[in-house]
Structures are given as structure tokens and as C-alpha cells.
């Protein structure tokens, strides 16, 4: 069912129409088999990249689409509903572009962004480590400064050693946005810096992808940095300011996850409603039983509320207002909603919902990961709770 959207401009309406067309023609026919075979659909990212979707919320002068988050996120929602591997991949790529776009020097933006946003390139975001997940400031990957003349460039640069875990697009990305420790071990949040590292860098390699519960076509892998030489010019933002960059990026990234979750939930709702109309038991469509229709009503209400919450957070962001707490609320509510709604959709579909013949069970498996990534929902509650008590 097409979602009725209020979009700020006619061009945004045309963009959503294009996204819808791409979702239906390029994603829908391939999602089930793509997930079964766990093959990363690089060509689909090229197709959406050529259509201009891989740089939407960044300025046009750097090759972006110049769109507000309010619009970009609805594109994520449309793609995620057909195939989360692509919708989430778009969100992760956009997140990986954020540090250069927001914290890069004018020179770095002009040099790097056109390639990153142009559609042919795909990014990955390397923050988590095996022993540093929710406690991101505890990361231990080292970026050791090299004396001028001895390093990769005249200014010295860095040598990076360590391993990053749970990296979406690990092994298939064209560039890695890396957070590594430039301070002494134990220097905490203040000892972290951000770097832009091309996939071609010597010493950078990804392990085979993890075997996951869902989202199997999207590779999640350990990315190893084995004495990787990184020029000083590839550091994004000041030395030691990387954690601020990471948190700012995550505030925006969370909105992408919220939008993706709403797409997944909407797809599950649509399946359940269609089934409730078609499936007849005791002489009538099962949707005529209150036990089913009330369930559908609750699902639809939650999906609509989740959509409005991420849009409200996006509009705050677009207006230049603080939006981090609202983004955490949107991520928390939308992903919990996706989990509940996809589970209920499988229930409405009964036995057929539990088979792989229909996408309901896949959506349910996909929903789970959204409660974990870009900050677990426990971390979202922490963010919201802290903000409440700070204001008192």
C-alpha cells in the first residue's frame, strides 16, 4: 500500500516516486533470493547511485542531492521496506560520508565528497570493536603518529593497527570511515581521531562475513588494519576530536535506522492486511474477526506514530535545532515497533507467515538487528534518560 506522504517540495515528491519505482522494479524481485544466497547486490547500489540516491542529504556543490533529512529518510524507508540490505546500506553509506561532509576542511570536502557522493562509491563506518561496542570510547585500534619525513606523507601521518568489528559493507566498501586512538592507551573519549581510508590502502583487509540471523546479503565483517599508512591529510577534524565526530554522525545515523525500521514495519503491515482480506475461515475473511482487526489497528497505529516521530526529529535537524534526544527516541520507538509489528504480521499470516515463501519471516528476522545497531535500544534509553535528568 502506498503511504500518503506530505513532502516539502514538488521535487521531493518526484524523488520519492523515483525511489518507489526503483524499490519495486530493482529491489522487490531480487530481495528473497538475494537474502537466501547471501550475495551482496553491488549492482543494485550502482543503479540507485546512478539515480542519485547515494548522496541525498549533502550539498549539491559537492555532488549531493541537497535534500533535507525529512526527504532523504523517506527514501530510506521506501527502499528498506522492499529490501533492508539496500535501505540500511544507503543509511550506512550516508553515515560514512557524514564526518567528511560536516567536519572535513574545505579542501577535504572538495577533494573527497564528489567521489563519495557520486553514486559509484560505497562507504563503511568503522567504530565498533570486539571489546568496544556500546562503550565506544574504549576502542583500542591505534593510529600512531609518525615523525615528519618517516610517514606516508611529508607531514608524517599515521600508522594504524587494530581490528574493527561488525562493519557493514566490510570487504565490499570503497572507503572506510575509521575511528582510532591517537592518544595513549586508556586516554578515553579525548584520545580518539577520525580518518578517511580508501579500501585500496595496503594492510587493510576484511575477514569473511559473519553468519547472521537476517540481513544476510549485507556483509558484516571484521575489518583489519595491519600497519596501514594513513596520511595526515586523511584525518577528519582535529586530533583527539574523533569521538565528538562519531557521536554527531550517530545522531543522524539513528534517524536512518528509524526510517528503515518504519519501512520494514510498513511492509509487514501491508502483508498482514492483504492476508486478512484474502484468507477466509469460518465463512468469512479473517480480518472480519475483531481479534485480527484490532491487532491490525494497533500495528497500523504504531507504524504511523513511528513514522511521525522520525519525521519530527528530522524536521528539528533540518531546522538546525538540537535533535539528538528525539533521534534516540525515534530509533528506539521505530525499531521496537518494527520488531512487534513484524512478529504480529507472522501471527496474522499463520503457518504461511512462518514459511520462507512469503517475506513476513524475513522481515521479522531483519527487524531484530535494528534494535541492536547504531546504539542498542538500551543505549538509546540511556541517552534519553540522561538528557531528561540534565534538563532538571
Amino acid at each position, binding site marked *: 500500500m502506498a503511504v500518503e506522504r506530505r513532502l516539502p517540495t514538488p*521535487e521531493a515528491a*518526484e*524523488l520519492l516516486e*523515483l525511489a518507489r*519505482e*526503483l524499490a519495486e522494479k530493482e529491489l522487490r524481485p531480487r530481495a528473497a533470493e538475494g537474502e537466501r544466497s547471501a550475495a551482496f547486490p553491488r549492482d543494485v547500489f550502482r*543503479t540507485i547511485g*546512478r*539515480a*542519485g*540516491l547515494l548522496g*541525498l542529504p549533502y550539498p549539491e556543490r559537492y555532488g549531493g*542531492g541537497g535534500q533535507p533529512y525529512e526527504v532523504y529518510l523517506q527514501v530510506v524507508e521506501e527502499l528498506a521496506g522492499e529490501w533492508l540490505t539496500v535501505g540500511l546500506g544507503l543509511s550506512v553509506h550516508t553515515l560514512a560520508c557524514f564526518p567528511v561532509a560536516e567536519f572535513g576542511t574545505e579542501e577535504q570536502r572538495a577533494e573527497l565528497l564528489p567521489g563519495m557522493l557520486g553514486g559509484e562509491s560505497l562507504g563503511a563506518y568503522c567504530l565498533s570493536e570486539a571489546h568496544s561496542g556500546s562503550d565506544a570510547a574504549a576502542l583500542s585500534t591505534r593510529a600512531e603518529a609518525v615523525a615528519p619525513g618517516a610517514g606516508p606523507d611529508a607531514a608524517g601521518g599515521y600508522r594504524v593497527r587494530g581490528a574493527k568489528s561488525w562493519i557493514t559493507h566490510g570487504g565490499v566498501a570503497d572507503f572506510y570511515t575509521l575511528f582510532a586512538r591517537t592518544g595513549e592507551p586508556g586516554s578515553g573519549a579525548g584520545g580518539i581521531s577520525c580518518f578517511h581510508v580508501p579500501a585500496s590502502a595496503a594492510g587493510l583487509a576484511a575477514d569473511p562475513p559473519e553468519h547472521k540471523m537476517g540481513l544476510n546479503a549485507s556483509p558484516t565483517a571484521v575489518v583489519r588494519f595491519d600497519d596501514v599508512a594513513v596520511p595526515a591529510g586523511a584525518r577528519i577534524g582535529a586530533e583527539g576530536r574523533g569521538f565528538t565526530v562519531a557521536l554527531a554522525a550517530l545522531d543522524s545515523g539513528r534517524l536512518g535506522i528509524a526510517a528503515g525500521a518504519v519501512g520494514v514495519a510498513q511492509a509487514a503491515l501491508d502483508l498482514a492486511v492483504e492476508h486478512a482480506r484474502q484468507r477466509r475461515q469460518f465463512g468469512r475473511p479473517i480480518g472480519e474477526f475483531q481479534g485480527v482487526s484490532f491487532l491490525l489497528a494497533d500495528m497500523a497505529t504504531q507504524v504511523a506514530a513511528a513514522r511521525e516521530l522520525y519525521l519530527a526529529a528530522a524536521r528539528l535537524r533540518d531546522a538546525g535545532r538540537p535533535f539528538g534526544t528525539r533521534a534516540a527516541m525515534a530509533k528506539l520507538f521505530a525499531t521496537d515497533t518494527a520488531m512487534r509489528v513484524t512478529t504480529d504480521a507472522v501471527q496474522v499470516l499463520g503457518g504461511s507467515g512462518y514459511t520462507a515463501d512469503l517475506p513476513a519471516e524475513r522481515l521479522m528476522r531483519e527487524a531484530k538487528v535494528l534494535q541492536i545497531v547504531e546504539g542498542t535500544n538500551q543505549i538509546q534509553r540511556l541517552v534519553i534518560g540522561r538528557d531528561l535528568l540534565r534538563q532538571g
Partner: protein
Amino acid sequence: MNIVVLVKQVPDTATERKLRPEDNTLDRAASDGVINELDEYAIEEALLLKEKHGGEVTVLSMGPDQATDSIRKALSMGADKAVHLNDDALHGSDALQTAYALSKALGTLEFDVVVLGSESTDARTGVVGAALAEYLGLPQLTLAGKVDIEGRSIRIQRQTDYGHDVVEAELPAVVSVVEKINEPRYPSFKLIMQAKKKPVQKLTAAEAGIDVAKVGLNSAATEVVDAAAAPPRATGTVIKDEGDGGLKAAEFLAAKKFI
């Protein structure tokens, strides 16, 4: 090279399509208008020709106001400009009159090649390309599955039931394409934005030099006198498996000469 691509807006095949009871012409208000599917292949081929040989791609569309949407779509795929032939006098024109009107509109343009889809999904006469070439006095290269241009020479593969013919002509020429020819590109968001700034020239029948006595419902050479909906598809044969289901299925297929 100047390339003109013909674009027609048709009712969306995914929606219910209706004729107006008063004159058996298409009820355009009853369904969403979309670009004729084969025209997307024509646009793609025009863009490929431009990418290879340079020049400009001009969209020409005949239709009412709402055809603007299909013109925009063609421009957002990458065409450079458009001409919209729009006149109430043209309402109800049949395939021959449409070819005549388009030939007059093309008379106002400079072109080396005209590319169009081999048929539309609404009327499906499939004759406009041939009739247009006759009106223009130009070679007709129809049902093209491949197009090559070298200098002033154009060569196509005409798709047939038994394979293909190779047909050659001198430019200017009219080429109609089949869907085998290419894979149409999607519009890009940037081109969608640029499309708004591309020129769309409005053309009336008089401006095109069309004799209005020769077009429209009243002077059409053909008339739709009646229309009937296709009968619903008959329900299939149900075989109940009582241990001999496989045998019965095989007998059914044998009776239909499938096996």
C-alpha cells in the same frame, strides 16, 4: 546529429482502462497517464545514439495537457528539449491522422532520425511509424532490435518471427523499436531537477500547419463502433488427488498435447 523521439502518454496498464461511452474514445480521466512503455526504449535508443554520435535529442509528443508528465519523464531520462503538440482539434484522431499530424509537427523541426516505439499499449495499431514515414516521404525502418549509424547510412535489425532482417537506408529516416533493443535507464534525481529548466515548446495545430479538417474524430478514417471487455479467464481444471493425481495430471497434459 539531431534526433527526435516520439513519446505518447497512455493509460497505466496496471489500472482499469475505459472508453468514454459517448464516442468510444479513451477516458483519460479514468486512469493515471504514464509514458508508453515501448517509448522508454525509444528514448533510451535516442540517448544512446546521442552519446555515440553527439547532437541533441528532442521529444515530440501529441496529446492533451496531462501529456506534460510523460514529456517531463523523457526529459528526466536525459532528452534535451521537447515539443508538445496540443490542440483540442486533434481529439479522437486515429492512427493515420496521428501520423499526419506528427509529420506536420516534424516539419517544424530539423532532424536526422526519428525514433519511436513500434506500438502503444492503448490502441496497439502499430502503424504510426510506417504511416509517418509515408507522410514524410522517408525510409521506414520498423521493428528495430538494433540500430547502427555510420555517416549518413543507417542499418537496423528488423525483428521477425524467424530471426531478423538487416535493413539499410540513408538518413533522414524513421525508426521504430522493439523492447529487445536495449534496457531503458532510470531517470536520475539530478536530471529530474534539470528537466524542470529544459525548454518545452507548445505547438498548436495551426502552428504546425495541420489542416484541422483532416484530423479529429469527425474525419477519422476508422471509427471504434463498439467495445467489449475481455471475458474473465475460465477457472482451471482441478484435479483431486485420490492416489492417482499424478496420472490424471499427465492425462490432462497429454490431452492438451503438452506431453
